[in-house]
């Protein structure tokens, strides 16, 4: 089976002044993949997503998303940013936030139209938040807010979904629910998720890559202790999955 290649990165290098954020990064993501990228904080995870969005231009290397430079296909990419601590009193409803995702389609100055409202309703339905559409965004729980932000990314009907630390501030039960939602979405789109939380990510994704300036990617879910150590530069607990997920501690 030859799946469609959605993302292709070749020999990517990104410098911020003197600091190298990414180097020798090569990556291919195929249609309907669910790729988890894990790595320590400051390992270049967010930078990698920004390269895919066309927000950061690599100093060298080649990027293509859907076979084109990323800035040309922004409308097809959904993005869920790292959850920021916005003001709980911010004057916006769930609906107001989700419909923001239509900006890419209509651009500056234009108003949201009927099509945008239909898409918003559909996206809210997809994440199970339609009933809360009139509520103030800041009054929802962390997990519910994260669903709303996914809906905002889905509203423009993207073919690729990028998520930056989506579960960083939600409690474990909500996390499970959230990953189940992503599992559903995987059927119709390609997902790249970035996280520093190895345990949570590894249960749900199809493929895992480790990123700490360089990318260690083997096109499967098997991570060896050597890869993790290379990524985190220290011994790391490894979690194996049997019928019951259990934790394997590497000998120190």
């Amino acid at each position, binding site marked *: 089976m030859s799946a469609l290649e959605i993302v292709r990165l070749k020999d990517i290098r990104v410098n911020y002044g003197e600091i190298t954020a990414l180097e020798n990064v090569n990556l291919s993501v195929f249609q309907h993949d669910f790729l988890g990228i894990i790595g320590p904080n400051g390992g270049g995870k967010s930078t990698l997503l920004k390269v895919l969005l066309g927000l950061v231009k690599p100093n060298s290397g080649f990027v293509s998303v859907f076979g084109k430079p990323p800035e040309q296909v922004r409308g097809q990419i959904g*993005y869920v940013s790292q959850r920021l601590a916005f003001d709980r009193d*911010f*004057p916006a*409803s769930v609906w107001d936030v989700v419909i923001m*995702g239509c*900006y890419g389609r209509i651009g*500056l100055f234009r108003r949201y139209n009927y099509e945008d409202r239909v898409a918003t309703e559909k996206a809210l339905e997809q994440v199970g938040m339609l009933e809360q559409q009139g509520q103030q965004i800041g009054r929802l729980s962390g997990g519910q807010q994260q669903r709303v932000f996914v809906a905002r990314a889905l509203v423009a009907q993207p073919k690729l979904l990028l998520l930056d630390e989506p579960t960083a501030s939600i409690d474990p039960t909500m996390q499970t629910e959230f990953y189940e939602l992503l599992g559903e979405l995987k059927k119709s789109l390609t997902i790249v998720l970035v996280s520093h939380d190895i345990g949570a990510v590894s249960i749900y994704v199809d493929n895992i890559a480790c990123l700490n300036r360089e990318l260690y990617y083997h096109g499967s879910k098997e991570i060896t202790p050597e890869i993790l150590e290379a990524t985190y530069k220290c011994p790391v607990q490894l979690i194996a999955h049997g019928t019951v997920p259990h934790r394997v501690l590497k000998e120190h």
Partner: protein
Amino acid sequence: MLEALQYEFMRNALLAGLLAAVACGIVGVYVVVKKIVFISGGIAHASFGGIGLGYFLGINPITGALFFALASGLAIGGVTRKTRLPEDTAIGILWAMGMALGVIFIALTPGYAPDLMSYLFGNILTVPFSDILLMLVLDVVIIGIVVALYKEYLILSFDEEYGTAIGMPVEKLYLLMLAMISLTVVVLIRVVGMILVIALLTFPAAMARQFTYNMKKMMLLSVLFGFLFTFAGLWLSYVLRLPSGATIILLGGTTLTMSFGVSRLLLRNRARSHIS
């Protein structure tokens, strides 16, 4: 109050209050939700340089203030986005240097600077008709921008990083927002004076925020509160023979503080009825 309305200066004062309420009500909502009250304070104080320049050149000080306000607004925005200078440092520099320039210009101007106090602390009773026309034009510009860019400014205020990610020209929009704040500052100088401008930029919007979480309704309510504060403050200052700008602000501030208390009480009662 009705007998007061037969005077032209009273009618002008009410008109000026209304125009000021429109500008500060709309723009104040952005200032409050985006938490840029002190950028606005910096712009207001820096514009004193323009007032001084106006006296020095013998032109309308408000025109000078308009240019200084725009320049300092864009400078604060540009400098903090392009360099590593922290925003509050940039604000501090412009705030102080603008005031200092104003003092120097006024010292260099021969003779006495008439109604200087009214620029500093406002005097809604002496607003000339030409300034009312200027305020009207600025109001129209502000409303035009907000109507055209409402959806963009909601995204910008809520989540700037997301705006960048979906390809919105975040930086240009932010600079335009600062320019809009500068225009509003100029509109308000005549009413409450440059030192007290931030009060009218924040009180009505903060008050409105307690009643709604819809930004459009918040703007309408904020315009309404802005007008109520100026109108009632003006009446009170007329009856008590107090300076109008300061009365407007003390009335607004007291109302706002009391409304915080009331809404806390309401919240507590609601929480209690949930428990029982």
